[in-house]
């Protein structure tokens, strides 16, 4: 601690340069955190997907439907515990910008397969009894201020003429998996089926299959696809996590993009800070030589330089992370559901701080080693 004054005095020697360097750390850390949060949002579906679930879609693509008759045939395949089907609804609430996913669900089997979604029994029973009923995620309800008993109109143009569908909110679900999706809107498949054009009747957008054991995933997937091979609606079956990953990749290789941007940001930061530290040390060659002359060891000099760069990293990093803590919820709200929820975890903050300190140490290391190896006699001659 007795060296703190010397370190701080040197740190604040050039205030403008210090502010700019700390600022670059803060911006880099904010960007890192924001990108990591976005990446995490995209990959969350993959991370929390059930290991013992398969998703069956039309081999042609997700927008092609499958016959409802597949339900029983899939259920009969050995290894299958339960099957449920979903259909994309695609309605608009008030404004197209108010996007959220809406699914027509199979009320008989949905809870057997999607076990992480928890709806109080009384609410679920109301939903089952109410053909125009809906169950919404807690996050979605919070977003629009909905509560049970509310009547919600959704405009839909996907199935025939544009029409407003009215729903009663009968229940609100929570996801028992941390970070799990709570932004869906469920309606009854029967109500959906009665109101769509004949061509869409008795169809499912996709099936979700619950397995007896996750070990059966490969065999059951193969069996399902073989069962419907050479039919007019061939299937493509994959694990839920592979399905989620593929869905995220439809938006482009987000992970690669984020890692590339993050890498460039940190490399640039390393160059900026390293250069700043190198200039700072070069300006003080004579002073460092004097410190050595009066008895400060080579290691002490290295410690002073590293302490400065680590302090810059710590202050800049903390500022950037603090800004991220404040800004990410605001950005998430402004995106209005266009992206999955942006969640900033403590582990991500810790990782950001570790990155900042690593960059700080790396940028201070070379100038510090230079200062450590400085020959007092040579340095004093240059003064």
């Amino acid at each position, binding site marked *: 601690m007795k060296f703190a004054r*010397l370190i701080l005095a*040197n740190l*604040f020697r050039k205030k403008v340069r210090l502010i700019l360097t700390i600022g670059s750390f803060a911006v880099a850390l904010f960007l890192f955190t924001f990108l990591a949060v976005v990446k995490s949002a995209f990959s969350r579906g993959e991370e929390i997907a059930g290991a013992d679930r398969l998703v069956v879609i039309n081999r042609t693509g997700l927008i092609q439907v499958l016959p409802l008759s597949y339900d029983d045939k899939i259920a009969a395949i050995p290894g299958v515990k339960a099957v449920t089907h979903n259909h994309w609804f695609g309605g608009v609430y008030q404004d197209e910008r108010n996007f959220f996913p809406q699914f027509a669900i199979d009320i008989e089997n949905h809870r057997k397969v999607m076990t992480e979604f928890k709806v109080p029994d009384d609410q679920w029973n109301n939903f089952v009894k109410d053909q125009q009923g809906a169950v919404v995620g807690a996050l979605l309800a919070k977003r629009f201020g909905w509560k049970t008993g509310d009547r919600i109109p959704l405009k839909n143009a996907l199935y025939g003429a544009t029409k407003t569908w009215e729903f009663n909110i009968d229940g609100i679900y929570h996801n028992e998996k941390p970070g799990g999706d709570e932004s869906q809107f469920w309606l009854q498949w029967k109500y959906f089926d009665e109101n769509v054009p004949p061509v869409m009747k008795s169809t499912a957008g996709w099936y979700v299959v619950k397995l007896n054991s996750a070990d059966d995933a490969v065999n059951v997937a193969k069996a399902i696809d073989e069962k419907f091979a050479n039919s007019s609606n061939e299937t493509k079956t994959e694990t839920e996590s592979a399905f989620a990953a593929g869905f995220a990749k439809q938006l482009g290789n987000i992970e690669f993009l984020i890692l590339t941007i993050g890498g460039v940001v940190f490399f640039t930061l390393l160059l900026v800070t390293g250069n700043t530290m190198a200039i700072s040390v070069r300006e003080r060659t004579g*002073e460092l030589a*004097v410190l050595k002359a*009066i008895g400060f060891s*080579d290691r002490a000099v290295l410690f002073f330089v590293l302490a400065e760069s680590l302090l810059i990293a710590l202050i800049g990093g903390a500022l950037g992370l603090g800004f991220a803590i404040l800004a990410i919820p605001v950005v998430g709200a402004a995106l209005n559901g266009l992206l999955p929820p942006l969640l900033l975890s403590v582990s991500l903050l810790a990782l950001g701080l570790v990155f900042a300190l690593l960059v700080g140490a790396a940028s201070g290391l070379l100038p510090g080693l230079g200062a450590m190896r400085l020959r*007092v*006699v040579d340095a004093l001659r240059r003064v």
Partner: protein
Amino acid sequence: MIRVDGQGSSNSLIQVRGLNKTYRRGGENIQVLQGLNLDVDKGDFVAFMGPSGSGKTTLLNLLGGLDVPTSGTISVDGDEITHMSSSKLTQWRARHVGFVFQMYNLIPVLTAYQNVELPLLLTKLSSADRRKHVETALSVVGLADRMHHYPRQLSGGQEQRVTIARAIVSDPTFLLCDEPTGDLDRKSATEIMLLIEQLVEKHGKTVLMVTHDPVVAARAHITLHLEKGVLVEGSAERLAAMAGGAA
């Protein structure tokens, strides 16, 4: 007693024997010091003179443990320093040597007090004890009332006084002064020399000083000239000749 013939007492504070220092410059070996001998007792005040490039500063650096000789030995207060490791030498310097540089070399972002305190940060003294030592050192150099000033707020003479306070604060075995008045006007130079004399006469310090200025050198107990790599005792005629040459 100061001797340059290698016949001094074994009780000398500083004892230099057969000191050689060779530099390699542009593919050529330049022998700066050639079998130099020196004996300095406690409380002596020695001035080194000689033309530029004669090796005065090299000698000072060797005596202060900042550089290592090509051959020969240097003993200070019984410690043979020429074979010490770099880290041992650093510790030895902290305990035994006080440096006064021509360009002061104060840390500009620290106050006079903080600059003087620097050598004490390497000791186990408490903050209160450090304060006592620093205040005493600054009082000795007459700057007790300027301890919270930064170097930029002090004159050249005052900065050099702070440097001297920094050099004496840890009560080193001897002081090495490299052109302590070289960057000062005559009045300030005289004040600094009075202060150094006071350190020798009143506080019993041992001082070895390099200077180009015969007037400054004349204040030392003895002036030694570096000629062809060895030390020779100065004489009034030689000093006068050098002064004339400088003019």
